[in-house]
């Protein structure tokens, strides 16, 4: 198969980027999209040119490294797969394929198609965990968890932190990512004690990192390689309301003078 590749090249965050056209000839339909780029890069390297920088690692759709916007869609035309699981037989012979990086304020470009997704890690560090020390955990069967609940938690936990949801959103919101993380732990009894603080902390961290707000357009679900449902966004909204309005939790900040307002 033959294609024309229109690839975004940019030397760094502070520099201007542009599209560069490369031909891709004699591509085997059994090749993965990234293997097709590997071949292009080999050719560039032998010409003494710098190869197109892009990220990948496991190449089986689970590590979340790969992150290409292909013909305008994060992870390309197939539903429920990451870029690395996309095969060339999926494309029409002779067409032009446009390849861009994730574009979001919170994801500065490092080079070409590689962006810095450290913001997702920092959101997780703000509270996306259960504060449980190593050692002393009770037997795993002491707290029973119904199968349906465990399966729902697993649905949410299957997020691979690739950031496609952010790249697809016109507001560059990380709502689906954060909702999946919050829902996973909120569904489990082990996550209960920190449920409210976690919802609030992650919402705050998401805003701090420069992600936009959710506009309920569901582009995120459509591109998610794990097909994580936007129902978790609704669940997260409920968690957040529950944490802030319905059950603000025990008083943690007692006003210095409780009668101040009457004076």
């Amino acid at each position: 198969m033959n294609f024309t590749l229109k690839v975004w090249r940019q030397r760094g965050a502070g520099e201007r980027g542009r599209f560069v056209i490369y031909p891709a000839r004699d591509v085997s339909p059994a090749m993965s999209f990234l293997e097709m780029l590997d071949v292009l890069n080999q050719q560039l390297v032998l010409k003494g040119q710098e190869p197109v920088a892009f990220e990948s690692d496991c190449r089986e759709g689970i590590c979340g490294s790969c992150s290409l916007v292909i013909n305008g869609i994060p992870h390309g035309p197939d539903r429920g797969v990451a870029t690395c699981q996309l095969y060339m037989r999926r494309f029409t012979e002779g067409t032009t394929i446009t390849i861009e990086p994730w574009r979001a304020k919170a994801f500065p470009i490092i080079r070409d198609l590689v962006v810095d997704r450290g913001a997702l890690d920092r959101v997780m560090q703000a509270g996306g965990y259960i504060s449980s020390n190593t050692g002393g955990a009770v037997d795993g069967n002491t707290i029973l968890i119904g199968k349906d609940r465990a399966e729902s938690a697993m649905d949410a936990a299957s997020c691979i932190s690739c950031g496609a949801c952010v790249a697809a959103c016109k507001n560059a919101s990380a709502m689906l990512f954060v909702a999946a993380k919050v829902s996973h732990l909120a569904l489990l009894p082990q996550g209960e004690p920190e449920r409210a603080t976690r919802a609030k902390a992650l919402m705050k961290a998401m805003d701090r990192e420069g992600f936009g707000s959710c506009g309920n357009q569901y582009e995120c679900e459509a591109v998610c390689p794990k097909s994580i449902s936007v129902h978790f966004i609704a669940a997260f909204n409920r968690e957040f309301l529950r944490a802030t309005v319905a059950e603000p939790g025990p008083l943690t900040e007692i006003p210095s003078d409780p009668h101040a307002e009457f004076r």
Partner: protein
Amino acid sequence: MIALDSKVPSGPLETKWDRHRFTEKLVSPNNKQHIKIIVVGTGLAGASAASTLGQLGYHVDCFCFHDSPRRAHSIAAQGGINAAKNYQDDGDSVARLFYDTIKGGDFRSREANVYRLAQVSTQIIDQCVALGVPFAREYGGQLANRSFGGVQVSRTFYCRGQTGQQLLLGAYSALCWQIERGQVAMHPRTEMLDLIVIDGHARGIVARDLVSGKIAVHTAQAVVLATGGYSNIFYLSTNATGSNVTATYRAWKQGAAFANPCFTQIHPTAIPPSEEHQAKLTLMSESLRNDGRIWVPKEASDRRSPDQIPEAERDYFLERRYPRFGNLVPRDVASRAVKAICDEGRGVGPVGHGVYLDFSDVIAREGLGLVRERYGNLFDMYQRITGEDAYEVPMRIYPAPHYTMGGLWVDYNLMSTIPGLFVVGEANFADHGANRLGASSLMQGLADGYFILPYTIGHYLATTKNGPISHDHAEARIAADRVTMRTTKLLQGNGRRTAASFHRALGRIMWNACGMARHRAGLKHALQTIPPLRHDFWREIAVPGSGESFNQELEYAGRVADFLEFAELLCHDALHREESCGAHFREEHQTVDGEPVRDDKGFAHVAAWEHVPNGAPILYKEPLTFEFIKPAMRSYQ
């Protein structure tokens, strides 16, 4: 000169670890805050170690070459994690998990280490549940189990087909907590390129910032390597494209012994290779063998499509040869049987490198819905890669390099032959002997990181006077210069060949000479062909760009350069081991039926190799004594 003292405590097997923990010295809480530990790698072993050390009060500098610690290749483990919980009341126990693991490893591992692994396995499950790992549950709310990879009890815990990812997310979330608390400083996109040894102790690393290209010295009181395995030496493997031997290999060059490098595991159930530019082999979980039946046509000339071949003309060769275990024989046994069938010309698929893995029986028996629930994501993955629907036509599978049992030599405390250098997870050699059973790599990684290293490193720190060292200490400067010189040299090739082409060439040599089956002549030939290839590499390598910027080709070329050196060590080890054991199959040592012949008189030892600058590596042997069990011949017939 290397001294191999395993430091295994004496006395009864069952109480060794408890007694050892009691005799280990502790570091007082006040002192912990003055101690810095470097952890390299953030897979299961590294993330669990870094988070636990942070929780204990140490300051941890944690490094990974990925953009995020959550991407390490532990995520790709699909099947599950073993633990001797005996929730199914089917006869499991710590003793049985111990026995299965040491037998599965073909009696080439230490009794004491393996017993400890089985002991802490039960704690791992509890710990992971506490961290929010969504293990599969029964309707009543209890944890579900399945039988997995060559054992007769159901002791494997799982999270659909992504157990590794969920366990890693558990460890990663614990790490996130410690980062938030300020106990762990995370350095993503930073690759360790050398080890700093001062006065015989590991005191730091030299690492390259992969974004800026800056080479920097990081010092500490101890260094923990959790940098995984080296299956990518075969070019095509199930490992991630970034997985490499660099950290452990550089530690070897600084004096750490490397043990049993030739014990490399080939996984029987990967999707067969299809074309030249393929970058990796994708694994299909071994759990598929629980329900799928493996077969090929009886006649080599049979080219009919599988549904046209009647039952009587199919050869279910694993069930035929191993009636007791059938399709569930250990990985090495299954892989060799598959290769043998394909070598006979009875393989299926476009290039004849494949056998059928057929689910029609289980679909007929238990229904499509159940099979979809159990393996849905794997069937989807298979369809994407091959374009075939495995619910309708049988899958095709072929063996692929998958895991390396060999690694840096460590004693019972997980410390290498360099004091202060600890090695955990796949990067060490300790627990799997000559072959690893399914669902035990996750177990070992987390056992090392959560429950073993945090104790044993304390004793080293409490009994060693390691004052602070400055970043421009002479040894640190020498190590940093080594890295800078090497990086510069990689950029000076004449640009005729890419790193990938050298990697492919090396992979071919290694797969043919040192893959599933090895023999003397092939290994000797490989030892003659590797040095010229390496020579060509340094002359012709093409690495564009500079060392002072984000340069993926430079990173890759450096890793290939280390593989090109390490390959020789692997061949030396395979050549020395004149027996067939576990995953190491020497064609000279087999029965007339093609079964491996182990030699307990000559080779019941760990082979630990010492680096000699500009010379052949020196072999040291740690004898393996079996006080508590009797090495039996591994027979799955």
